[in-house]
């Protein structure tokens, strides 16, 4: 497989570091590391922003097809240049700030929303040797950093001095804080299975993708993640039909462009995390390099999220909170128990689980997932409305008696 080695070698970030280290003189490895890290960070950030731009086109186009319309198709072949036209428009527009707005908070909010989204990309393994930081607490870092966007959304809502923005932001804070609990608990199952907090170790440990081993954990994580990035059916933060545009009502120009960028980058980043945690990340069969597998899986997850967005309507506020605390929280505890007991019973002396017991665990976990979902649906699902038999009005027989 010499072809594979060469092909993947170009994509590896390590080879760029080796290249820079070869140029640097002896004893200057720290300088080589700094330069390589700067180059790689630049590459990754630009690739992320660019793919977000293309993703906005993809999302609008596919959403249009889902809804029997065309989507943007005017500018460039198949409307491919539409995101760039959008960016130009947003940059050249006037950047207005309300008179009573908290100017500093309002200006910092888009940055505070965008930066955590970008930072998460630092620990995601894009390939076997392609990651910016080999952090041994990767998933903890991801959970911690993404929770910053709660503050950013509240900053945006508070700073704009707008009632709708404030309402959207407060709903957002309530929702995001609630959904971080099931999200973290769903991750615990993965951590128990792989025995590590590092994302590259989790990828290494997935001989069978964890979506098969922990279907319940996968569903919980996807639901919680789509709530975290506030997409339908959980888009209470910017419920257009209720709140104008929610926390970004007062934003325009470049600030709105940043909010928009962060909002559309979130599905990509979340899809990457889901790919890493549950779909085996860069694992795949051989002639195709790991990076390509990663992109393919991410694309599949993004499409699934888009499909859900195109289909399901928005939930009410109380339904959303109830779903997080009564449904997902309980289910994630069930998932943790099931995985922990299975791992404790099935693992051998080295801590790994052999192929045979693993498939037993898959079967058991699917059964638990099905039972759990059915029970949750029974407990939370809407009961059939049964109307009381109306008590007859005392005036009903008034005329009958008169006759």
């Amino acid at each position: 497989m010499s072809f594979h080695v060469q092909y993947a070698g170009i994509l590896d970030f390590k080879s760029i570091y080796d290249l820079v280290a070869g140029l640097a003189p002896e004893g200057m490895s720290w300088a080589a590391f700094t330069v390589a890290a700067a180059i790689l960070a630049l590459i990754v950030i630009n690739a992320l922003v660019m793919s977000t731009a293309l993703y906005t086109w993809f999302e609008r186009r596919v959403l249009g097809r889902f809804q029997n319309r065309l989507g943007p198709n005017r500018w460039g072949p198949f409307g491919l240049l539409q995101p760039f036209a959008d960016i130009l428009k947003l940059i050249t527009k006037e950047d207005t700030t309300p008179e009573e707005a908290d100017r500093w908070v309002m200006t910092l909010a888009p940055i505070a929303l965008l930066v955590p989204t970008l930072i998460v990309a630092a620990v995601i393994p894009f390939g076997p040797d392609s990651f910016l930081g080999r952090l041994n607490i990767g998933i903890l870092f991801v959970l911690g950093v993404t929770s910053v966007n709660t503050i950013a959304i509240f900053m945006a809502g508070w700073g704009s001095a707008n009632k709708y923005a404030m309402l959207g932001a407060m709903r957002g804070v309530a929702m995001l804080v609630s959904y971080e609990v099931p999200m973290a608990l769903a991750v615990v199952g993965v951590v128990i299975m792989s025995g590590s907090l590092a994302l590259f170790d989790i990828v290494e440990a997935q001989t069978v993708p964890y979506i098969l081993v922990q279907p319940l954990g996968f569903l919980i994580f996807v639901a919680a993640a789509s709530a975290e990035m506030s997409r339908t059916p959980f888009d209470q933060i910017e419920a257009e039909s209720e709140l104008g545009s929610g926390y970004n009502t007062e934003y325009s120009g470049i600030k709105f462009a940043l909010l928009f960028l962060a909002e559309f980058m979130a599905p990509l980043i979340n899809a990457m995390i889901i790919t890493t945690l549950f779909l085996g990340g860069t694992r795949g069969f051989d002639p195709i390099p790991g990076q390509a597998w990663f992109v393919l899986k991410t694309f599949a997850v993004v499409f699934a999220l888009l499909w859900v967005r195109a289909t399901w309507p928005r939930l009410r506020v109380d339904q959303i909170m109830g779903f997080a605390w009564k449904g997902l929280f309980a289910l994630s505890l069930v998932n943790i128990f099931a995985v922990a007991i299975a791992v404790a019973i099935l693992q051998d002396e080295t801590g790994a689980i052999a192929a045979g017991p693993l498939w037993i665990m898959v079967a058991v976990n699917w059964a638990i997932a099905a039972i759990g979902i059915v029970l949750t649906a029974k407990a939370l699902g809407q009961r059939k409305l049964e109307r009381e038999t109306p008590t007859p009005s005392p005036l009903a027989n008034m005329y009958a008696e008169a006759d």
Partner: protein
Amino acid sequence: MYGLSLLKGLGVTMKNLVSPGRMFTVHQYPDRKIGLMGLARLNNQNPVAFTLSKPGQAIKAMVGLASVRDRQYQHPRFRGEEFSWYENRCTGCASCAKYCPLGIIRIVTDPAKTDLQEGDKYFLEVFDIDIGRCMFCGLCVEACPYDALHMGSGFEEGRYRRRDLVIDKARLVESPKRPSHWFRPQLADKEEYNPLEGDEADWREVHRHEKPTISDQRSRWGQR
């Protein structure tokens, strides 16, 4: 039950995505994308001959970059912008300005330049219609006693500045004379006239009654 209807909903949207029969209830304006077959049919050739004669256009069409102008069906009674005004029919009576509920028609006439004793009509110095505030009620057209003012048929009148939306006399004179059928039954009765295609309507054609010929008038005078 048990969230199965959620999956059913996903199935419905996916059917809309993949099945070609359900695509595109959208009418494309101002131009629509056209494939090779459609382009060849427009040029009255079969696709092979068209590809051989114009390979560049054929490749563009195959890639999906070729487009043709497309207009939506528009009713001849459509009340459009760019009023059709016939200077020869207008007497400067300013009925339109009086009847306009928004007062956006401004007419300034100069009687000094006309010889009213000779049956001459007022000379119009200014005739401005501010269509930025117009609501296209058409009361001005109803009020016109000489059928000089008609609703137009165009609608692509977007401007970058508000003051460009004021139609002045020069623009009214130059604008294409394609009066809408609205409140003009004499135009609707004529089978051959369509405001969207064909020739422009001459000022002699837009009257409400047949104009008496010279011989008719002479005989009528003679009968007196």
